[in-house]
């Protein structure tokens, strides 16, 4: 659990982060979203004390984050940034091993951890371990950056626009991978982005920042249905609302009894993907298959249309 209480950061007269309070549940993904300059990075960097707050407190599992030296705190918290920040003169394996080495792990344990992480990120350790960062693609560099942040098994992972430099296809893949890894390690992730699409894709809860203040902190569904301010509404994008609503839930929760013709779609896809499939195939309903392949019912245009409707 991360408790941020009345945290403020001033540079001169201006409060860059202004009296922000958030409570973040363990093992969840929280996305901080807002326009450029709204104070997202500053808020994130106060959690691991790369920036010292002007006032307020931050507690990690009940413990004030000022109770130990900054560098020791940061070794316990994963940190991944846009442009990955890999050390150009160190190999991929050495980069990932940085924090375990700082913590004084034994060689064998470090090597095992590096191999495990590389495999988890679908990079063959024998091939990629000895490479230098410039010998990787952008997507691979980004994965190594996250792997390095996770090397010491931190409970909390801070990410500042980690996918900002990736092209759309690789970005989508990286987002899926992040969610899988977050579940695997049960990490609490706090991710900063200016991309609302990304926020809806990843978040259990979204915090919207505007001019240093958090203007809404809610689940994606709540935020869609009840945006707190016109600013939040505009950030979501009025014309995107029904699709975002459908994108949150899987097909499974929209299954109706009955049967339909055509190729079955998977119950794990999002309802938005089901809608697209329905529209494209020109049918009013399609059968739904569970992951094992058994038909468990149907999904219909009519049913999805109801679910996509906002509160009246």
């Amino acid at each position, binding site marked *: 659990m991360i408790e941020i209480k009345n945290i403020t950061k001033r540079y001169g007269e201006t409060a860059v982060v202004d009296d922000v309070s958030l409570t973040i549940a363990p093992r969840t993904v929280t996305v901080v979203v807002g326009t450029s300059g709204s104070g997202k990075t500053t808020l994130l960097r106060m959690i691991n004390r*790369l920036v010292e707050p002007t006032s307020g407190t931050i507690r990690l599992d009940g413990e004030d984050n000022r109770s130990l030296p900054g560098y020791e705190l940061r070794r316990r918290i994963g940190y991944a940034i846009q442009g990955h920040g890999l050390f150009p003169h160190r190999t991929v394996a050495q980069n990932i091993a940085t924090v375990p080495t700082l913590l004084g792990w034994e060689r064998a344990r470090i090597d095992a951890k590096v191999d495990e992480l590389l495999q988890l990120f679908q990079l063959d350790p024998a091939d990629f371990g000895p490479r230098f960062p*410039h010998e990787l693609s952008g997507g691979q560099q980004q994965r190594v950056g996250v792997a390095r942040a996770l090397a010491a098994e931190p409970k909390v992972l801070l990410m500042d626009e980690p996918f900002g430099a990736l092209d759309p296809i690789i970005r989508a893949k990286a987002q899926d991978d992040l969610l899988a890894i977050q579940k695997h390690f049960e990490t609490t992730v706090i991710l900063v982005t200016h991309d609302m699409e990304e926020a809806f894709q990843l978040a259990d809860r979204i915090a919207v920042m505007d001019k240093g203040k958090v203007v809404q902190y809610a689940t994606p569904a709540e935020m869609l249905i009840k945006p707190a301010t016109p600013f939040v509404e505009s950030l979501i994008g009025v014309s995107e609302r029904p699709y975002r609503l459908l994108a949150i839930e899987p097909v499974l929760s929209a299954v109706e009894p009955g049967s339909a013709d055509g190729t079955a779609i998977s119950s794990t896809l999002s309802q938005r993907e089901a809608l697209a499939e329905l529209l494209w195939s020109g049918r009013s309903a399609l059968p739904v298959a569970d992951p094992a392949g058994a038909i468990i019912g149907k999904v219909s245009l009519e049913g999805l249309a109801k679910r996509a409707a906002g509160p009246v």
Partner: protein
Amino acid sequence: MRQLRFDKLGAIIAALALGGAFIAPFATFRANRIVAGEAKTIVESLPQPWSAAVLLVILVGVLVAAMRSPAILRLVAAFAALAVLALGIGVAASHLTPEGNTYARVSPASGFWVMLFAFGLLAADALTRLRPAPFMRIVVLVAVLAFVGMLLLSGTWDGLSILREYASRVDTFWAEARKHVTLALGSLVAATIVGIPLGILCHRVARLRDGLLGVLNAIQTIPSIALFGILIAPLGWIAANVPGAATIGIRGIGVAPAFVALFLYSLLPVVANTVVGLAGVPRDANDAARGIGMTDWQRLVGIEFPLAFPVILTGIRIVLVQNIGLATIAALIGGGGFGVFVFQGVGQTAMDLVLLGAVPTVVLAFAAAIVLDAVIEMATPNTRQAEAA
């Protein structure tokens, strides 16, 4: 058949070499070390079949240089011509000197130097085109030095006037050589030990940076002789007034002011390159280093310094080459070094003695530059090469 075409730089080199071989004299003969000499052409200087062989190799070199030809062929031709020149001038010395005459002097004349320059240029150009790996460059340097060493040891050059000067000063030559190297290297080491921490400090403290770099820049603009002069007074005062200073060798003239002056000159390149190198460390890498829990010291030692190291080495290279040259001037204030021979030679109008001081200085500076360039390239992480590609 492929058409033969001219190479622009090669044509100039060829013209120079031809002029050197046929218009300018190859060697100068003098009855003793200070009288005016008689100029001798290649044919006059060398016995048959030597003169024919030398001319043949030079003509082949000229042809290879003038035409477009593979770099490796140009390199071989250049080295062959240089080797033949080196051997030839030795043969000329023994050929021109009458048997048993120890007063007569034979020295290389303008034609020799022009050809040396032309084929040296050809070799350098070919090497640039071949782009040998850093290690190979050092191998080439060692091979060239070994060849020169062999000529020296075998006595091929013993008849040359510069080696006659050497023969009459064997002891002082090596003593001055030691002083020269100690002065150049010692001031470099001192400047590195002081300059790198200063550079790190400047990097961290912006206000200090502008002030300190300004002062060091100003020092750099003081002409060397003036700086030696300026230092005489304060060091003399220290020697006279600080107990013990004189006993450890601090004096107004001699090694101390020379050392201090070289040290001061060395500081700017070391400090400035340290600052530039540290400023060039990628922001992301620095931010990540802090973000994952490195202390300032760990970040400096593990990230910033290794990434800045090639740039710092470039500063050290500048200093070393500069100091090897500047140390010559130390002789003016009694600091010793190869400059001793240069200034004695100037005083006695004995050109050979000047060369005895100048040639080793140039060779040292040249070798230092090649070795350090190679080391810098080896120390540079291949990231830069990848970006350049």
